[in-house]
C-alpha cells in the first residue's frame, strides 16, 4: 500500500503514474488525531486517504473539523503505527495484572490521618 510501489519519480523529474491505476486505491491511509482544545490530548477521530502528508492534513481539516472541533491536527501514515496485537492481549498486559501495590488503595492508613 505504500505510495512508492505505485508512483515512482522519474529521473528527469516527471512523475510516472501507472495508467489505469486509480490513485486513491494506492494513496496511503492516514490516521487522524485532533486536539479538541488547548489542554487536551490529541484523540483519534478516523482515517482518510491522501497522496502525501500535506494533503492529508488539509483533507483532515475539511473532513474532521468542519465545526471547530479542533485546534490542532496530527496525521500519521497508518503503516507507520506499531500496535499491540489483540490476540495476545492477556499475556501482553499480564505484567501489570498482579501488581496491586501500584494502586493507592492497596495501602491501609488510619482514617484520622489527614491529607492522605
Amino acid at each position, binding site marked *: 500500500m505504500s*505510495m512508492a510501489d505505485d*508512483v515512482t519519480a522519474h529521473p528527469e523529474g516527471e*512523475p510516472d*503514474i501507472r495508467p489505469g491505476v486509480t*490513485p486513491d486505491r494506492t494513496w496511503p491511509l492516514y490516521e487522524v488525531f485532533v486536539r479538541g482544545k488547548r489542554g487536551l490530548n490529541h484523540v483519534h477521530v*478516523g482515517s482518510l486517504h491522501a*497522496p*502525501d502528508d500535506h494533503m492529508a492534513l488539509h483533507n483532515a481539516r475539511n473532513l474532521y473539523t468542519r*465545526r471547530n472541533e479542533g485546534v490542532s491536527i496530527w496525521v500519521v501514515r497508518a503503516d507507520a503505527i506499531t*500496535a499491540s496485537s489483540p490476540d495476545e492481549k492477556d499475556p501482553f498486559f499480564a505484567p501489570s495484572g498482579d501488581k496491586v501495590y501500584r494502586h493507592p488503595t492497596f495501602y491501609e492508613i488510619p482514617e484520622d490521618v489527614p491529607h492522605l
Partner: protein
Amino acid sequence: MDRDEQQLAEAFDATVAAEGRIEPRDWMPEGYRKTLIRQIAQHAHSEIIGMQPEGNWILRAPSLRRKAILLAKVQDEAGHGLYLYSATETLGVDRTELTEKLIDSKQKYSSIFNYPTLTYADIGVIGWLVDGAAICNQVPLCRSSYGPYARAMVRICKEESFHQRQGFELLMTLMAGTDAQREMVQDAVNRWWWPSLMMFGPADGDSPNTQQSMAWRIKRHTNDELRQRYVDMTVPQAAALGVTLPDPELRWNDERQAHDFGDIDWNEFTAVVKGAGPCNAQRLAHRRAAHEGGQWVRDAASAYAAKQAERATRRQEGEVAVA
C-alpha cells in the same frame, strides 16, 4: 470449527453480550464482517448519492443564506460518506472497490434518493422527513456493537440534527408565506411521506436478516419498531407546521398508545429497489460521470505529491540549491 476458533467465537459472543465493542483487529465471525460491510457500505453510498437531489438546488437557492446552508449540508453528506467508508475499510475492504461496486450496481443505496426534488420545498421536506427518518434509524446505531461504526454514527447524528432543523425552519418560512408557497409545501409532503416510511425497510415479517443483526447487536430495533417511532414523532411536527400527512388511516390509537397508519405500497418499494424508480439510472450515471470525470484531479494530486517528494529528496542530497 476447531477448538481455537470455538474459543474465539465464545469470546466474541461474550463481548457482544456484555455490551462491549468489537474493534477492527478482533476475531469476528465471517457473517458478522460481511453483514457489517454490506450495511455500512449501503449507508455510505446513500450519503454520497444523497448529495444529488439536494445538489440539484444549490445554484437555484432563493437567497445567499439558503445557498450557504444547502452547501454546508451537502458537504456534510460527503463527510458522512467518508466517515462510513473509513469504517468499512477497518473491515478489510477498500473504498475504491466499494465505489466501483456502487457504480456497477453491485451494491445498493437507500431508495429514497431515487425520487426527484421538483421544487425548493422538497429541500425542506428532505431535511424534515428524510433526515428525520434517518435520525430515527441512526441514533440506535451509535450503540452498535462494532466500534468504528458506532463512533462514525455519533459524529453523523450530531450533524444530522442541523440537517433536520434547517429543513423544518425552511418549511416554517414557506408556510408563513403565500398560498402558493403553502401548496408547494403540501405537495412536497404528499410526495415524500410514503417513501420516507419505506426508508425503514421491509416489514419485520419480510426482513430475514433482522434477527441475526439484532443478536449481533449491529441493529438495535426492528424496522417496524423504528417506523412506528418515526410516525409518532412526526405527527405532532406536521401539526405544528400546518400540513396534512397524506394518509386517511393515520390516527391515534389510545389502546396502543401509538398512531395507526395505512398500508405501505410494498410493490412500489420493491420496484424502486430493483431500479425502476424515477431517478435510479440518472443517479448512477451522475455518480459514474463524477467518478470518471474526477480522475484527472486524482492524477494531478498524485503527480504533485510525487514531484514534491522528489524535490525534497534532491534538496536533502544537496543537488538543488534552496531558492
